[in-house]
């Protein structure tokens, strides 16, 4: 049953990613990416990562992609590029697909699937907000504080970069 759900979500995620890759209009590509992110949120729930699944929908699909759509509609791009034209581009794309194929086979051959040794003895609240917060405020408190400074810097930088020049 879990395998069926995984194949369903994974298949939709991969096909939406391929749709995003081969789309001429940026708005359609952004919508396909949102579908991919929602499928990934479903897979996170399968992996018992409840907080990260909720954050994926709230932050990624709900804030970052909305920001993307705002900018796309603000710039009002008239899409003129040819559909992945050029032989050199095709060779580059094929090269990367070959590297990806090698990567997938390396994973398939080296990752051992013995589950019994590792999936027993799960902590009771694995993947909940409490467990993530416990780590975030004790062991990883320095990255947490630095992340807040990073967000402040990003806010200031974005405002300055996007500001119109005062005449």
């Amino acid at each position: 049953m879990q395998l069926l759900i995984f194949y369903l979500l994974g298949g939709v995620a991969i096909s939406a990613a391929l749709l995003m890759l081969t789309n001429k209009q940026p708005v359609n590509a952004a919508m396909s990416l949102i579908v991919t992110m929602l499928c990934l949120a479903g897979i996170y729930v399968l992996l018992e990562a409840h907080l990260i699944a909720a954050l994926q929908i709230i932050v990624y699909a709900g804030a970052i992609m909305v920001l993307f759509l705002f900018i796309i509609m603000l710039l009002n791009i008239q899409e003129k590029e040819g559909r992945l034209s050029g032989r050199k581009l095709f060779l580059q794309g094929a090269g990367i697909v070959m590297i990806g194929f090698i990567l997938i086979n390396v994973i398939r051959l080296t990752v051992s699937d013995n589950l019994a040794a590792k999936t027993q003895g799960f902590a009771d609240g694995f993947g909940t907000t409490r467990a993530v917060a416990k780590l975030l405020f004790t062991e990883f408190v320095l990255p947490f504080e630095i992340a807040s400074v990073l967000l402040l810097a990003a806010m200031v930088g974005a405002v300055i970069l996007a500001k119109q020049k005062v005449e």
Partner: protein
Amino acid sequence: MVPQSHYLILGAILFTIGSVGVFTRRNALIIYMCIELMLNAVNLTFIAFSRFLNNMDGHVFAFMIMTVAAAEAAVGLAIILALFRNRQTVNVDDINLLKG
């Protein structure tokens, strides 16, 4: 029960699709969206490993990746906006002032 390699292979496939997009598309916004797809694939790999090693550190790292992706999205899109205002194009082939 879904084996661990399935999750990792899905992450690898999504990462490959994202990197093909970064190399072959000419629109700066689509390139940026493919970068976000690559970040998502890496997130999936972290969460999968975290579950199969029964360690919560992967979740915290995925949290940090999301934070960094949000900050990067804001600043990167502001840069693209400023670029569009100056050059009236987001085609990366036309932005070649530094070309030798």
